[in-house]
């Protein structure tokens, strides 16, 4: 029988790509989303890609009663992949309570449900923001957790702690936290991708929107950092590579191959790329000249970070296969499809 996996935030950017990879591997997928930041139509698109539309349940995971009645009605769930969260760093600074309430209450409700309904496994969507500005690069999983710069980042840190402590107290529960570096790009079908609401905070959607003419210029925040070209360095990985890591993590938990009941993995390419290099890659693969301008640093940005993904490479047998150019190309294809130019 097909193993049943619940994907929260399943119509979101990473959630939708993960749902596709899970279904390609033969899992049955149920999406949960409150559509706060995504469209129900994404479930149709997943269906267009995989040949079968996954079930979508629309409700808010902060509503304890809804969560419980969902799991009461849906038995034999093998694992939860928990993506659902508010994710805008800048917004979180202005709305800290909303971020803490939404990101933490939903997680706690799910953990409660796992205990009550005997769901043995969770894969948690965490972030490299937990490392702050690491002293040693590349950064591995042993690096110290640093005080979070934003409420958003803090919800990921606290989220990990809540999971760790809950697992320590409850036998039979297992979880893996995946600390992503910077996911970019879109599905090769061009049917799903990143569609940020409002003005994007992340580099790649800003690049593609600028190239599309939606934005006048791209601001590069600072070129006086202690990096070879002075711009910030990040580790950009293709969202499909990232999605595949979730399938592996779920399988690891279901098959009981995990070494401890709580594990943490970095997911990145292992290669740092500067903002200016990212821009060059985009210009190279698309043949489009970007209108960008160097401006002052943006508050809250760390200087440089990239992953030591050796542990995930070895333990999960996972590594990224798409290059930066691949990712940029797919991001551009998606942007073009979404904003098909009018005559």
């Amino acid at each position, binding site marked *: 029988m097909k193993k049943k996996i619940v994907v929260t935030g399943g119509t979101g950017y990473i959630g939708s790509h993960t749902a596709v990879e899970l279904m390609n591997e033969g899992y049955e997928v149920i999406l949960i989303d*409150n*559509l706060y930041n995504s*469209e*129900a*139509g994404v479930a149709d*698109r997943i269906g*267009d890609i995989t040949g079968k539309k996954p079930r979508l349940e*629309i*409700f*808010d995971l902060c509503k304890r009663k809804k969560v419980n009645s969902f799991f009461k009605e849906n038995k034999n769930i093998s694992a939860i992949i928990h993506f659902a969260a508010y994710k805008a760093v800048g917004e979180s600074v202005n709305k800290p309570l909303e971020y803490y309430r939404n990101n933490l209450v939903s997680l706690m409700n799910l953990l409660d449900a796992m205990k009550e309904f005997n769901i043995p496994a969770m894969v948690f969507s965490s972030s490299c923001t937990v490392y702050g500005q690491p002293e040693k690069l590349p950064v591995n999983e042993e690096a110290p957790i640093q005080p979070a710069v934003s409420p958003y980042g803090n919800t990921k840190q606290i989220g990990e702690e809540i999971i760790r402590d809950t697992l320590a107290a409850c036998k039979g529960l297992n979880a893996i936290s995946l600390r992503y570096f910077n996911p970019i790009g879109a599905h090769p079908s061009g049917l799903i991708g990143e*569609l*940020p*609401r*409002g*003005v*994007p905070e992340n580099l790649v959607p800003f690049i593609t929107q600028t190239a599309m*003419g*939606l*934005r006048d210029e791209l601001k590069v925040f600072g070129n006086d950092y202690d990096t070879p070209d002075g711009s910030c360095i990040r580790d950009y990985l293709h969202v499909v590579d990232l999605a595949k890591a979730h399938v592996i993590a779920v399988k690891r938990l279901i098959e009981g191959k995990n070494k401890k009941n709580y594990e943490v993995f970095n997911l990145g390419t292992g290669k740092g790329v500067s903002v200016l290099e990212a821009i060059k890659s985009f210009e190279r693969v698309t043949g489009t000249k970007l209108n960008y301008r160097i401006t002052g640093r943006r508050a809250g940005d760390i200087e440089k970070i990239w992953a030591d993904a050796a542990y995930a490479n070895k333990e999960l047998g996972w590594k990224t296969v798409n290059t930066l150019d691949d990712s940029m190309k797919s991001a551009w294809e998606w942007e073009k*499809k*979404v*904003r*098909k*130019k*009018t*005559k």
Partner: protein
Amino acid sequence: MGEEGQKKNKVIMTYKKTLLITGAAGFIGSHVARRFVKNYPGYLVVNADKLTYAGNLENLSDIDKSNNYLFEKTDIVDKKAVLALFQKYSFDGVIHLAAESHVDRSITGPDEFVFTNIVGTVNLLNAALSIWQNKFEGKLFYHISTDEVFGSLGSSGLFTEETAYDPKSPYSASKASSDHMVRAYNHTFGIPAVISNCSNNYGPNQFPEKLIPLAINNIRNNKPVPVYGKGENIRDWLYVEDHASAIDLIFHRGKPGETYNIGGNNEWKNIDLIKLLCKIMDKKLGREPGDSEKLITYVKDRPGHDLRYAIDSSKLQKEMGWAPIPRFEEGLEKTVEWYLSNGKWLENVLSGDYEKYYDSMYSGR
């Protein structure tokens, strides 16, 4: 406290917002209402609809039983009824979609367009003003309009939010007039209002007098498919669910006093569109390729037929990150599939049986 008072109290206490959607039994309105009822369980959605020929409660049968949805049969031209509705629910937000919308009908009978579209809008504005009493915090009057208020375009260029109004048909003149009233109330009385102007909508539940469902229905029944003039007119087509997602964003993030254009970035000559539709229908009905195209019949053009509408929605895309999602061919296929698998709906609206549906659902309630 009387029964009414208790009910009202319950409404106010239970829900974060009470929201009036006018014309929610209509084509676009039903998609908007469905979205709000499903995505915002904390909102009470009240559908005020007159149930003209274009309004059909069957469009909402899937949310009919939802706790946070109510129907109030209302003619917005009836000033007293509108005020009573506002008094009953103390709406925090209004999304105003109720309108006469078919250009051909506005040519044969403009009066109805003046009453519903202009007088109806003013009645709603007055009721909102009298209930809100200058306490505008958290309130919004959102008026839905059309890009036809901008008149017609030549072969290039786009309507922006800055384009001067130049309506050409009684329909578009009535919508332009209502837009002006909404802006004037915003300016004069400070009522927080936003407007959006959209291009041609298509999708499930559209009344089969409009180009796409009419063509689908005629092709299906092997009847001639009328095309005005040479079919050279160009329209931008917006999938109705994309329109609903834009309305959702504007309702929550729009700035009072502002206008937003909503378009599909999707221009088609009528004749090319009909030919594409014929191709899709051939496939779906298992006909020989080219069979349906033979049904195309050119008819005398509509008087004052605007050549081209095209709309620049970059303000909305820039400020709110909105984008129309489905590709046209796909959206069109979905629409065709919907009409083919909802033959009963089509028959009902064409025969007037939807009135029976209304009676069966609502009489004696």
